């Protein structure tokens, strides 16, 4: 792959040919055992998704930068004790979710917790139809509208949607990352999708 790094550092860190094919768990184990290149590969794979997850949740770029750096520093410090107990992405996004919760509790103690289960009513007709983007509509406009709708979702539903689309987590993995039951995670995700779909249909 060549040099994956293009930063201010004077060091050039080659990426091992096998790093691209290695699983996340194997790369993390390699980093635990002293392979800094394995960490670089991991970081490249997941930095965008973690950053956007935090950005969508806190809605502040500066705060997202701070939380983002904290998440990766926590991962680095915990490398010695890492063992494969779940998917690496689940492990990583659980660190990100916990760091986010710590921020919310410290700054807004009375705010609604992301772990709260809220039942939101959904318009049946809109929910029954699948979302089909209108031909000719600017995709970027649709994307922008989707982000607006996403921002309007309850935090826990938004988290479920983002974990699925940014982290590629399954319902079970979303439940582990957010510390809720599978049914709760499933319900949140379904409500989030239903609302987004309804909102997109209504916008079109």
């Amino acid at each position, binding site marked *: 792959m060549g040099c994956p790094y293009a930063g201010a550092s004077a060091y050039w860190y080659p990426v091992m040919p096998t790093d691209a094919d290695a699983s996340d768990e194997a790369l993390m184990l390699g980093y635990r055992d002293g392979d800094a290149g394995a960490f*670089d590969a991991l970081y490249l794979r997941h930095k965008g998704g973690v950053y956007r997850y935090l950005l969508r949740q806190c809605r502040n770029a500066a705060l997202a930068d701070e939380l983002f*750096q904290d998440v990766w520093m926590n991962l680095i410090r915990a490398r010695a004790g890492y063992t494969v107990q779940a998917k690496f992405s689940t492990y990583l996004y659980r660190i990100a979710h916990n760091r986010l919760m710590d921020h919310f509790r410290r700054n807004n103690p009375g705010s609604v917790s992301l772990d709260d289960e809220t039942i939101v009513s959904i318009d049946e007709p809109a929910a029954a139809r699948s979302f089909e*983007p209108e031909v000719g509509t600017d995709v970027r406009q649709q994307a922008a509208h989707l982000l607006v709708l996403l921002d309007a979702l309850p935090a826990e539903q938004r988290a479920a949607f983002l974990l699925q689309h940014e982290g590629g987590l399954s319902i079970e993995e979303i439940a582990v990352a957010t510390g809720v039951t599978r049914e709760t995670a499933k319900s949140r995700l379904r409500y989030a999708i239903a609302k987004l779909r309804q909102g997109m249909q209504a916008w079109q």
Partner: protein
Amino acid sequence: MAVTPEPNMERDPQLAAVYRAASGEEPPGHLDAAIRAAARREVDAGPARTRKVRFGNWGVPLSLAAVVVLSVSVVLMMQQEGADRIESLTHPIPAQVVPRAADTGIGNDAARSLAVEEAVPQRMPAPAPAAVRPESAKSVAETAPQPAAKRRDDANELRTLESNAVRATTAAEADHAQGDLGAKRERVPAAPALSPLRSAPAPIAGESAVGAGLADPRAPAAAMADAPEKAALWRDLVDAPPEKWLQRIVELRRAGKTADAAAVVGEFRRRFPAERVPEESH
């Protein structure tokens, strides 16, 4: 109208496609550099696993070694303390008794040994107090060693027996008493030669002397040696028959020399235990 979402609504490919088009944000470059540099510093600091294991390898053995050392030290200290305590119980200090023997003026070994014997706690049960009967007195005499108080009791008993023997009205009773007295004298050689016959209060006041007399088998000769003037009273009667002795006793009593008469009586009884001593007539 509230409606439960339809099942199988966990995924929507169209929404996913639209969302992918909207997700272009990336972390700034300085964050990338900082994070990757921190990751390399963590690796360069040394294998965290090795450092942790090193401490983990030595922590438990050192703790166990410390526990063992402390336990052994405590056990040894307790054993030494217990040994010292046992030794103090089995070897009491008798030093305070020795000056008493010295103060009495008796410097012989018998006095000192008796003093020590008095100081040592008597573990043997004390024999039953002897009644004023010859049989019990005999059994007491046969029990040795005896404390000084007990020997004092024996001397008093001997004196009582002697007085009973003198007052006896029948020859058979007197012979029996004298025979018992003689038997008693044979078994208690020291006491009759000393304190009971000198004077009445002497046996109690001269406890150490009595004890010294009982403890020393050479007491009769010693008593005679200590009273040369007494020996002179019967020097001329050494080979004389009992009648001569009795005549001398009567003469001394008539002369008012009761002490001399008592000394001669004592020697007469020692030499002629079967003979009867006449009563004092004053």
